[in-house]
């Protein structure tokens, strides 16, 4: 028996992370250049809508362009000052989506067909205000949050906050078949689920970071899967039960799916155990099927998904069919800004169904571009997780990007008839204050994590025992 021989040619300079002690470029100028595009493209779109619909340059163009430009500029300056090494793509991508969303909302405001509807109010101005609030929150997060690891301290406070945010809507009247709003008379309503997404991610990240070893290691092997111990099943069962409760009491399939999905993703990352994914899928399947057997609202959604065109026979909501026809009528290149009829969707054309307008007016090409932008945001988020040096940051970044990806999938998939429609908003694009504000906060947290991750590590202090490690050759 020969002694274990060390690998002889192991290079000792292998760099397994993206972090190096050499000063990484901050990429702030790249961000600025990309931001210029992210502001200019929506401005052209805005002008295009005006020319197509009224035959003249829209009078609001200057205000709109300056507004968006100002928001982007403030965002950029704050990033430059407070998160110098942040990922350069996240801010421009979010700005771009926000800008395009504003143009579509403004375009739908002009639609006489929507104006003729009861309860329709023009929302572009409000949305611009909400976007500004979103940027304000973005700035606040960057300025006030010195390091994302501070959030770890608030693990259990986050849990309480998330519970309150999620439970609160149950006590307010349902709107359009779902209880997901907190209505404050005179002030309007907010959708706390959007904020709960972030707070919950903080809680999961903090909790899993502490418990990951117990969850990962203490398990029995059964049929090739590592089964967790019964008492470790507690948290996943609790989250599962909670998701089901949301589904039953708030009749909100999307939120429920989003939270459970996010939890399973984070659990998997924390424990590296595939069995959790299997459990998660099984449990969501069981939950969804069980609830749909008695929850009328969920059944309706599934029927509407399977037979969208039956709406014309039985007089139920024809939104999905109208959205599909909007996509189909757009074809490959679309009708051009302002020349489609996606307003036929009627209710929620500028929020949940906003992607259908992209589909009709910008065509397959436009939707692919928008989906790519969403995909890029998600992948930049995951990239941040890979680069993050601390497990909390990794978990938080994965959780937030995973939640973002699931939300995009659930909304876009619902609108395009890939999965049953669940009534969530397209991040950044859809009309709705809570959504745009919360998503700016989400981007701010990701930017903060990426800043920490990409920041050049301080030159390692000469380690006292560095010299003592020696390769002993036989």
């Amino acid at each position, binding site marked *: 028996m020969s002694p274990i021989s060390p690998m002889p040619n192991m290079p000792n300079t292998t760099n397994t992370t993206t972090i190096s002690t050499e000063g990484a470029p901050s990429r702030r100028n790249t961000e600025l250049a990309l931001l210029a595009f992210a502001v200019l493209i929506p401005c052209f779109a805005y002008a295009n809508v005006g020319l197509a619909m009224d035959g003249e340059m829209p009078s609001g163009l200057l205000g709109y362009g300056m507004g968006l430009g100002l928001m982007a500029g403030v965002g950029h300056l704050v990033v430059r000052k407070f998160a110098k090494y942040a990922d350069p793509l996240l801010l421009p991508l979010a700005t771009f989506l926000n800008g395009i969303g504003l143009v579509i909302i403004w375009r739908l405001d002009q639609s006489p067909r929507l104006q003729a509807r009861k309860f329709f109010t023009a929302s572009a101005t409000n949305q611009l205000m909400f976007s500004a609030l979103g940027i304000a929150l973005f700035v606040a997060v960057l300025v006030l949050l010195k390091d994302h690891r501070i959030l770890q301290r608030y693990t259990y406070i986050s849990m309480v906050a998330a519970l309150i945010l999620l439970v609160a809507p149950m006590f307010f009247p349902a709107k359009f078949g779902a209880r997901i709003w907190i209505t404050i008379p005179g002030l309007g309503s907010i959708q706390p689920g959007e904020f709960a997404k972030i707070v919950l991610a903080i809680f999961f990240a903090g909790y899993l970071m502490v418990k990951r070893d117990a969850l990962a290691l203490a398990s029995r092997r059964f049929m090739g899967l590592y089964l967790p111990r019964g008492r470790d099943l507690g948290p996943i069962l609790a989250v599962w039960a909670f998701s089901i409760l949301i589904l039953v009491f708030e009749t909100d399939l999307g939120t429920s799916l989003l939270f459970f999905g996010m939890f399973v993703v984070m659990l998997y990352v924390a424990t590296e155990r595939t069995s959790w994914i299997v459990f998660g899928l099984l449990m969501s399947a069981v939950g969804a099927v069980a609830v749909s057997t008695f929850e009328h609202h969920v059944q309706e959604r599934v029927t509407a998904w399977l037979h969208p065109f039956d709406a014309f026979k039985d007089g139920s909501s024809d939104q999905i069919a109208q959205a599909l026809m909007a996509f*189909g009528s757009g074809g490959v290149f679309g009708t051009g800004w302002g020349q489609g009829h996606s307003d036929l969707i009627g209710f929620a054309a500028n929020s949940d169904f906003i992607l259908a307008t992209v589909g009709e007016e910008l065509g*397959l090409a436009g939707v692919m571009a928008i989906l790519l932008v969403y995909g890029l945001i998600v*992948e930049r988020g995951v990239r941040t997780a*890979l680069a993050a040096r601390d497990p909390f940051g990794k978990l938080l970044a*994965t959780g937030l990007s995973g939640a973002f990806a699931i939300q995009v*999938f659930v909304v*876009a998939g619902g609108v395009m008839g890939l999965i049953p429609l669940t009534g969530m908003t397209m991040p950044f694009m859809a009309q709705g204050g809570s959504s745009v504000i919360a998503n700016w906060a989400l981007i701010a947290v990701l930017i903060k994590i990426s800043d920490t991750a990409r920041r050049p590590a301080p030159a390692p202090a000469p380690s006292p025992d560095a010299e003592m490690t020696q390769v002993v050759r036989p």
Partner: protein
Amino acid sequence: MNKPVRRIAIFCGLLVLALMIRDNWIQFVQADELKSNKHNRRVTIARYSQPRGNIIVDGQAVTGSQETGGIDFKYKRTYKNGDMWAPVTGYSSQVFDANQIEKLEDKVLTGDDDRLFFNRTVDMITGKGKKGGDVITTLNSKAQEAAFKGLGDKKGAVAALDPRTGKILALASTPSYDPSKIAGAQDDKAWKSLQDDKNQPMLNRALRQTYPPGSTFKVVTAAAALENGLYKDVDSKTDSPLPWILPDTRVALENEGSIPCKDASLRVALQYSCNTVFGKVSADLGNKKMMDTAEKFGFNKPVDTPVRAVPSVYPKDNRPQNAMAGIGQASNRATPLQMAMVAAAVANNGKLMEPYMVDKLRAPNLNVIEHHQPKQMNQPLSAENAQKLQSIMETVVEKGTGTAAQIDNVKVGGKTGTAQHGVDNSGNPYAWFISYAKTDNGSPVAVAVVIEGSETVRDDIAGGKLAAPIAKSVMQAVLATEK
């Protein structure tokens, strides 16, 4: 922890990929289907977003467009004299789609036709809106008016053709409806009452309704006799006993009154409308030969004018039924257009021209994008036999049952018919008349008229009395414009 994060990255990528594949599915693969889905209002919105092209008769538009000020539909279809032209134009409704020419030539009328691509492009570059093209029909407004007025409040239909070309000159159906009344977005009530009306005003009887042809079918039977060589001469005696027993039965076929039918020549038999003679001709020829001749005249096939006329039928049948079919009283049925085609083929010396009603399609800049060329459809009988048949049909009008259709100084040939129908012939009989007029330039018009009997004229419904005068005025209208 990086391995699961990478896997999550792949998972998120797959989610986006799934969305992209789905998007390609609905925006590329299924796009056309969704675009033209019958629930897709964009089709109608586009159809009424600019004034529609017009349907033109004798250089005058019989349709129009009116601005509505509505959100969905900027324009609405209007019709001039809609009741009269409905069997030609069809309707174009903002809610209930469209039919007939309005539907078939919709692409030209809305300007979406591929052949208008150049026009559209030029208009787009010069900043003009899209414009629809026009459909120029073959119809003769005077003849149409004569037909429609002649039918009056009776239930019936008229089809008139130019035998030399197949041009449809008149196409009337009563009771009719005004398509203007169902063109708008709020016309549900009018639509419903039309649908519920038991007189079926929206039924285009000239093309879409088949009737037992009655004695007018004897013209086809006579043609079959001549073509198959059963009888060579229209003036020599036929082998026709009286009474004559239907084959395989003990029932004697009756004639209307005591008319000289025993061994009557074809001329005399047609003049008096002898059931026995033609029943026996049909029996002697057999089902196969009768069916062949009928099919040469256009039976058993739909005719696209381009508006589709339902097939007239001459079915396979047993011997007694086939004999009855020879006098148009069995399960053979014909549309008014079909019977006009029969008269036209005879009048055009045996050549049957394909009937059509769209002469030209015209681009908004007045360029003709399609000009229909007359086509021969068939030759059901030789020129020689056709002339023999003409001569006996002319006898019918001269001194037979069709004297009501005589026109001074013009040779008119025709045949009356009174078709029994219903259980035990209890229904009011149908009065038929088919005829043609001949000038030095061949025959410019062949016409078929059918009138569904009404209670008041039950005893007195012979085709010669009710239908022949209408045919006469239609022929006169065409002859007047011919000069």
